[in-house]
């Protein structure tokens, strides 16, 4: 009797657990892994030259082309360069700001800064990108105020993306700084360490996972972006524009699929590199 009850309880608990876990797992497997699977598979198909319909016979032509074509290589290097620059700029801006917010500012100023950092997230991406287009135009506000504007191009793209993704860096770094106990900092200075030494040997290792988490956002968001560059990039094109062109303009889904394996690989490699540094172990 008692054993029976235990079994029914166990079963009903399992059912409840299944009820909780099935929707997210189904989403992950079907929508996420499933679509990645289709993507991977369709990279090995080709299209009918005339009607553009997908032909389902195996060919490795697309992969070979992606690996050998000079245009794709230049665009890939340019895109990775942009993503890394954006990440570096975001780190340089976010670390002092987050340090100030978490450890120096009064509660009231801290709240104001958190609001200031997150408010831009409420505005539409396009509005912000077009605002930068205005700002950087040849006779625009920046030129009027500073007498100089970089104009539309690579620099404008990096600046705009760095602006767009900055909150995604500030928030995790701020959270990481907040989690550093004040007692550790006090102990360090009580033992005679200079502020810079405390920052370097006590705070930096504790904050690094936060920076790493933020950099994953800024890097992967920049890798996949193709809209900001059409607004402020002048004649620059990124990998995303090429994928879009092959998918929508040329209607060549298999080649687009093969091309999108590039950012996918880049992001996976970046994640692995971050894991090696140990940054992902206690995020």
């Amino acid at each position, binding site marked *: 009797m008692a054993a029976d009850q235990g079994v029914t309880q166990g079963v009903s608990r399992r059912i409840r657990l299944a009820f909780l876990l099935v929707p997210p797992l189904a989403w992950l497997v079907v929508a996420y892994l499933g679509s990645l699977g289709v993507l991977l*598979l369709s990279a090995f198909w080709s299209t009918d030259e005339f009607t553009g*319909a997908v032909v389902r016979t195996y060919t490795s032509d697309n992969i070979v082309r992606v690996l050998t074509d000079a*245009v794709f290589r230049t665009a890939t290097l340019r895109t990775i360069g942009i993503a890394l620059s954006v990440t570096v700029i975001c780190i340089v801006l976010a670390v002092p700001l987050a340090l100030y917010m978490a450890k120096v500012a009064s509660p009231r100023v801290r709240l104001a800064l958190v609001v200031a950092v997150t408010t831009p997230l409420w505005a539409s991406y396009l509005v912000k990108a077009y605002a930068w287009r205005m700002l950087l135009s040849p*006779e625009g506000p920046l030129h009027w105020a500073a007498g100089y504007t970089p*104009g539309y191009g690579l620099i404008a793209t990096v600046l705009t993306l760095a602006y767009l993704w900055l909150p995604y860096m500030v928030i995790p770094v701020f959270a990481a700084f907040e989690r550093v106990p004040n007692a550790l900092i006090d102990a360090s200075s009580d033992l005679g360490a200079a502020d810079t030494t405390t920052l370097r040997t006590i705070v930096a290792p504790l904050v690094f996972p936060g920076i790493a988490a933020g950099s994953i956002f800024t890097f992967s968001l920049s890798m996949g972006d193709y809209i900001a560059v059409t607004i402020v990039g002048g004649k620059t094109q990124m990998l995303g524009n090429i994928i879009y062109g092959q998918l929508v303009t040329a209607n060549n889904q298999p080649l687009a699929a093969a091309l999108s394996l590039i950012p996918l690989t880049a992001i996976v490699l970046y994640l692995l590199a971050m894991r090696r540094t140990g940054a992902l172990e206690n995020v």
Partner: protein
Amino acid sequence: MRNTTRRVGAALAACAALVAACSSSTTSGGGSSTAPPKMEPLSALGNGEGQLNLVAWPGYAEDGSNDPKVDWVHPFEQKTGCKVNIKVGNTSDEMVQLMRSGQYDGVSASGDATLRLIYAGDVAPVNTKLVGNYDTISAFLKDKPWNSVDGQMYGIPHGWGANLLMYNTDVVKDAPDSWGAVFPGAANKGKVTAYDSPIYIADAALYLSKTKPELGIKDPYSLTEDQLNAAVDLLKEQHANIGEYWSDYTKAVQAFESGTSVIGTSWQVIANMLTSDNKVKIAAVLPKEGSTGWSDTWMVSSKAKNPNCMYKWMDWITSPEVNAQVAEYFGEAPAQTKACEFTSDKNFCATYHATDAAYAEKISYWTTPQKQCVDGSGNNCTAYSEWVDKWQQIKG
């Protein structure tokens, strides 16, 4: 360990099932052929079905939601009882994709989409006898390579326009009358603009057909490998002088007003907007080499559920009053010759050269380049997919 293997196996099986399920739904069109699939046009007009689903360029099917005064959809609904659902297409390529879904009755297709639709069997031939207003449509728009095959019309012409050479008259003082001003455009380095689409390669080819006759280019959409490469080389040279490319026409307006661009390819509607804003002084000309341009055609889907309503729509949109309204709102020449009597600006048709066959003759209308040359000169031409690759190489 065994447990993990089994789990991975199950996940893979799920993926495979998904792939199999998805792959059966993407086929469309059928195999390649040199003739479009055989289909019979509608033989007689019946009663409206009460519904109509359209794919249209922005500004072609206005129901007053953008501007309450601009509405020719509701009067149509009242007259015919066909309730209109509009899906706006932003590019020719998007329109082709939408029509492939088979969920729409008709589309306002530009010449760089029409042949793809015809040969894939996505649109049906049109019985022009069932469209009363077809008779008075400009003769130079009928039976053209981009809207007919072997004398069979596949749609009803809507309107057309030319890509113009536009420049800021304060900066460019020598009043250019040749595309040589933008090919390669070194005089205005960094301030040249161009249309951001593979179809722009035809502009370079058109220029080369006049300036380098030894290349033997007869039609800018029928290019052999060597001719395409020559056009691409010219565009790569131009790329060094480009400030930015445009595809959204409001971006082109803004680029000229801010001084980002001072010379480049443009549309009449852009020139009109700049003139009415009056922030910069511009001029727009049809250069002596002629120009590329667009000519749009309303086409009926081969899978149309409401063909009668679609025929009623084609007759409505090409009726003199409505065609005049659309053309004025969008800024292009109306296809309907009688529309010129109904424009609110009496000079409208003159400004757009609407009935000027000689002007229209100077325009090489957008057509989808194909392996089988669109001008019928052979089958050694370059296909549109190759143009896309080249365009990406030009942009580098």
